[in-house]
């Protein structure tokens, strides 16, 4: 067992967990933050993307112990005072989702993109979202959502 202390969505949390606990498991099972999804077991789908110290990473391929002391932001940490984050609002406005399973990962990944690139082109958005798989939308409206959010962020 190992004690993992993190700052998750602005709150300090500390839990004793088995050493092999994945960050995705820590978030979902120990903190009940089930917005972070697990869509595959091969680290390819990106549904589990969260931010660790501001950078997007796959929480299903990262040990909780490995990010000890870090600041973690999950999809639950984006909205402020009941108001959707501009990226969430843009996904809603442009209908950038259907079943919604991939959406938390898509949103977290896209937020990271706009942190470094203010006005990405369609091609840059598609390249950046390479690690996020959606089986419903055909990606068109997801790209539209990221472009819409870029005008608001």
């Amino acid at each position, binding site marked *: 067992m*190992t004690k993992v202390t993190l700052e998750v969505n602005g709150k300090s949390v500390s839990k004793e967990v*088995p*050493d*092999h606990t*994945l960050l995705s498991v820590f978030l979902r099972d120990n903190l009940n933050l089930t917005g972070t999804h697990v869509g595959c*077991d*091969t*680290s*390819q789908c*990106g549904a589990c*993307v969260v931010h660790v110290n501001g*950078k*997007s*990473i*796959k929480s*299903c*391929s*990262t*040990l909780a*112990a*490995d990010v*000890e002391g870090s600041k973690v932001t999950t999809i639950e940490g984006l909205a402020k005072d009941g108001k959707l984050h501009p990226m969430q609002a843009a996904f809603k406005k442009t209908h950038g989702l259907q079943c919604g399973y991939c959406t938390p990962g898509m949103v977290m*990944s896209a937020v*990271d*993109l706009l942190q470094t690139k203010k006005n990405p082109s369609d091609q840059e958005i598609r390249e*950046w979202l*390479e*690690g*996020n798989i959606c089986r419903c939308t055909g990606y068109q409206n997801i790209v539209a959502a990221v472009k819409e959010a870029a005008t608001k962020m």
Partner: protein
Amino acid sequence: MKTFNYHSPKDVKEATKLASSSSAFLAGGMTTIPSMKLGLATYKDVIDIKNIKKLSGIKVSGKTVMIGATTKHAEVAASKDVSKAIPALAKLAGNIGDAQVRNRGTIGGSISNNDPSACYPSACMALNAVIHTDKRKIEAEKFFTGMFETALKSGEIVEAVEFQIPEKADYQKHPNPASRYAIIGVFVAKHKKDVNVAVTGAKSCVYIDKDLSKKLSSNFSSSAIDGTEVKSSGMNSDMHASAEYRANLVSLYTKKAVEAC
């Protein structure tokens, strides 16, 4: 995933002391963790080396670029120093996997795993890299010994990779559409005296195509390899590409790389 003991040593000495025949060093974990999740690998001890400060960082001197083992792909891709000294290396790092893999995956992890389709081994071969470990220095050509095999001994840690700065270089990759691993990747480097054409994805291990390298050494233009047959024998054949297709891509991507230099 089977249970293990997680360790986070602060220096190399402590890390090597923890190592045994049933341990693994963990850097970005982009291969190690998925392998453990699938049950392909199990370890008693997982030794995380990311908190060892001296293993991370980029240093450019007159003739070489030294990259610490736990330096992430995203850091190499974004490094102004690397982009200035060896732009092809920054480009290669920026096209490995996807953004989230690049935010975690490391150069030391990539070369120690020596996946036959990984990008970095081709850069090591073409740029006459020297792999610095905690025990010795190993030339790239002697480091990559076979499929997922390297010259590393049990408990030996890669500390840094030292690349020779070439006159010109370029990397061209035909990526697998799902994983972005190279179906074929060709790294062409023109040094003062000769040219190296390193190929990944084609065979069970990265290699230098001696024939193409020799022809380009005497005439560095894409027309110099017109009509040069790349043999498909010994090349991988799978659902993505036959051996013959790969052989054709090797010459095509070598030309593309030369033209982009």
